[in-house]
């Protein structure tokens, strides 16, 4: 229980929503307790970005984080996970950069099936509504991402797998 106190002081927690808006679109929303100017900074400065993009509970370590935040500029993120055989890379380029209000980038690590991500920052009374919109090139691409579970958080699951493997080693494995 005491370990949980680390996260204090706790700001007001706003709800996060996620929805498949159409065959090709996913939308996530969340209000952040701060002005758009500051929230935008946290999305565009690597030293800030890597503080929040991979929460501890994901079990990932950031190996590198590079962001050339301007139209046509590239970004690259490399993570490692104890259960992953090799580092995971995510990369793409920025299509639109409008300070404090809008970012658009490509996701190219998956080849042609990658989505285009648009994030808008709408300031209201000192808070910022974030709308993150992923547009996939086709229905099949989004269905594929869902079917492969590629976007899932994997940490606890890998622990469970270890247990399951240990427990099943002598039963299912032999049948």
């Amino acid at each position, binding site marked *: 229980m005491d370990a949980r106190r680390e*996260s204090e002081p706790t700001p007001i927690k706003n709800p996060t929503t996620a929805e498949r808006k159409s065959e090709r679109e996913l939308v996530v929303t969340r209000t952040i307790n*701060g002005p758009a100017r500051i929230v935008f900074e946290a999305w565009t400065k690597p030293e800030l970005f890597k503080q929040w*993009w991979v929460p501890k509970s994901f079990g990932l370590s950031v190996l590198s984080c590079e962001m050339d935040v301007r139209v046509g500029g590239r970004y690259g993120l490399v993570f490692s996970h104890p259960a992953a055989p090799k580092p995971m890379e995510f990369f793409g380029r920025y299509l639109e950069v409008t300070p404090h209000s809008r970012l658009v980038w490509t996701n190219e690590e998956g080849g042609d099936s990658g989505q285009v991500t648009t994030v808008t920052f709408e300031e209201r009374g000192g808070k910022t509504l974030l709308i993150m919109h992923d547009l996939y090139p086709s229905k099949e691409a989004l269905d594929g991402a869902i079917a492969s*579970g590629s976007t*899932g958080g994997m940490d606890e699951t890998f622990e469970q*797998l270890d247990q399951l493997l240990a427990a099943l080693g002598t*039963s299912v494995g032999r*049948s």
Partner: protein
Amino acid sequence: MPLILCYILNHMVQYPRTGFDAAFAALSDVTRRGVLEQLGRADASITDLAEKFDMTLTGMKKHVGVLEQAGLVTTEKVGRVRTCKLGLRRLEEEAAWIERYRQRWDARFDELDKVVEELKRKEKVDGRKKRE
């Protein structure tokens, strides 16, 4: 590794929320593991499965029920035949995936909140210094 084990592992990775205990209990029975193997080769009706495993319909229905509860098997009744196949229904899969996706972003945004709080605090301190 047998294909069926791959399937089960994959299932556990993708749908941890359907319950590790339920899946584990479902797998503790040799007939149920056999049913999963069988369904890994082809969908089958409860009658087919009962025949193959030399079992009463009622007995097989119970086994399939346990697998279904654990989210390992889906059944669908068409006319008088109940067909069994591996996996969750597609819509359930999608709902489960979107919920995991939402949770992942929720965790990220909680961290973002902290970063923004810290930046706000720094700005206040810097602002005070400038005025002094």
